[in-house]
């Protein structure tokens, strides 16, 4: 049903993404693609992968932004995926019941057997988290790797979303954001984790940790003045001026 679950046991599984640590290597996006193209929503179709206009379904995209100017400016790598919102408009707009939010843990999923591919859920999501599979004719999205986190065939240490387990910088954390004592909740409290676009009212579960304030002390000393450039190279002779121009070319 696309009406949101009324009774939940308080669990809110989600991700915490540390923008201070992320190096923008795209490993999370690649491992996500690799796992999920054989997972719950398989396949994540690629079209024209070697053509002029390659496109395909990815659940995770890594953008790079510049924020601020001058010495205080930062380059911030910004992984973007489904935030498994508490008020997911993508679920309530679904006319078929294919989109749903799980009662037990709040994960937002799509039932590919009942999705009609109307794309309205992707219009309703402010975060651009849902991608339509043109080949399958259904909408696809991050499953928080339900086929890993609950997979009894995997050793316990591997029961993490693919993006989290692969991140070489440990910029991604997975856990229960509904439990104030969980590691991820503690991390959010400690570092001032925040919601993306709170004004949209979706109440995202996933949180982002801001880049830490700059600790580069060398920025505090003023830069040396630039080398002075001779104002004129006029030699007083047209011929010598011409030679000078030719040689300095």
């Amino acid at each position, binding site marked *: 049903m696309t009406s949101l679950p009324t009774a939940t046991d308080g669990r809110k599984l989600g991700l915490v993404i540390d923008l201070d640590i992320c190096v923008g290597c795209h490993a999370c996006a690649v491992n996500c693609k690799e796992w999920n193209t054989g997972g719950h929503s398989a396949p994540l179709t690629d079209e024209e992968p070697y053509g002029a206009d390659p496109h395909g379904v990815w659940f995770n995209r890594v*953008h790079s932004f510049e924020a601020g100017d001058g010495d205080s400016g930062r380059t911030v790598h910004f992984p973007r995926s489904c935030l498994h919102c508490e008020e997911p408009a993508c679920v309530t707009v679904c006319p078929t019941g294919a989109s749903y939010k799980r009662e037990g843990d709040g994960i937002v999923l799509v039932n590919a057997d009942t999705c009609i591919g109307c794309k309205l859920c992707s219009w309703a999501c402010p975060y651009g988290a849902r991608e339509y599979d043109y080949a399958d004719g259904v909408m696809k999205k991050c499953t928080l790797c339900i086929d890993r986190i609950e997979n009894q065939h995997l050793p316990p240490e591997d029961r993490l979303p693919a993006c989290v387990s692969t991140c070489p910088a440990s910029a991604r954390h997975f856990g229960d954001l509904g439990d104030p004592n969980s590691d991820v909740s503690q991390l959010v409290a400690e570092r001032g984790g925040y919601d993306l676009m709170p004004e949209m009212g979706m109440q995202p579960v996933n949180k982002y940790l801001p880049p830490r304030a700059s600790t580069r002390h060398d920025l505090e000393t003023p830069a040396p003045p630039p080398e002075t450039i001779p104002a004129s190279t006029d030699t007083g002779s047209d011929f010598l001026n011409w030679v000078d121009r030719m040689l300095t070319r």
Partner: protein
Amino acid sequence: MNPAYSVIFFTTASGAGYGAIVWLVVLALLGIVPLTPALGASVIIVSLALITAGLLSSTFHLGHPERAWRALSQWRSSWLSREGVAALVTYVPILIFAVGSLFFSAYGPVWIWAGLIAAMLSLVTVGCTGMIYASLRAIPRWSTPLVVPLYIAFAMSTGAVLLIAIASLFWPTPGLIAWCAAVITLAAWMLKIAYWRQIDNAKPVATAESATGLGAIGTVRLLESPHSSENYVMREMGYTIARKHAARLRKIALVVGGVATALALVIAGLLPAPFATAASIVALIFAAMGILIERWLFFAEARHAASLYYGASEV
């Protein structure tokens, strides 16, 4: 937003069809239109054809049209589902009213009630269409209180023009009705002007800073896109039209759909039969051109919050 032709055709065609049904019922009940079987049947057949073609065309853009019936199940939460249910339910009173006006005196109590219910449900269906867009907070230019009144106003305006064009084939258009349609058409476009003013002057709802949460550092701009070619999100939600092209198209829509349509209707009300028929049909052509441009712009001018992740600075 990407202006999909199937959706543009569906919203405009079904809007005109429902509007014409509403006017037919109202004018018949007031006794202004002599509801002959030929006239009643023509209006109802053309309206139902437009509504049905629109509904079918709206299923063409589905990934799985064969599953479309599932869209009727979630009317508790989804405006798209409510629209589908309302559209199907509305067929029943329309068909009962059609039988009444074709084979019996349409003024018997059963047919009158069927007509009234058909008119009411027609407006509800158009309202649901508007709510599909008005309920999307991710698209601030749609998520305004004017969108539903606009959908209803344009349905009533284009429906009136359609009714007059059909009716003028059967009996001379009474001046008063044509002039009323001209006033309604101008009123709908005035509402559209108010909407354009509103969206042009609205403060941004979300910004690249709020989308990334990096505003504390400074102005945020995209340095590098995650991918080298367009993905689904950019194709569907990233479509934007240049501001100067939009301004030109707005003027064309307003002049053709509003002013020229109203003028043709006024002329239709003044001239004798053959000329009135010609003017009514010209009005219908103008109205159709105007509403198609208006609906195309409704999509093309709307900016989606997800575009903030792909270089837009505000929506």
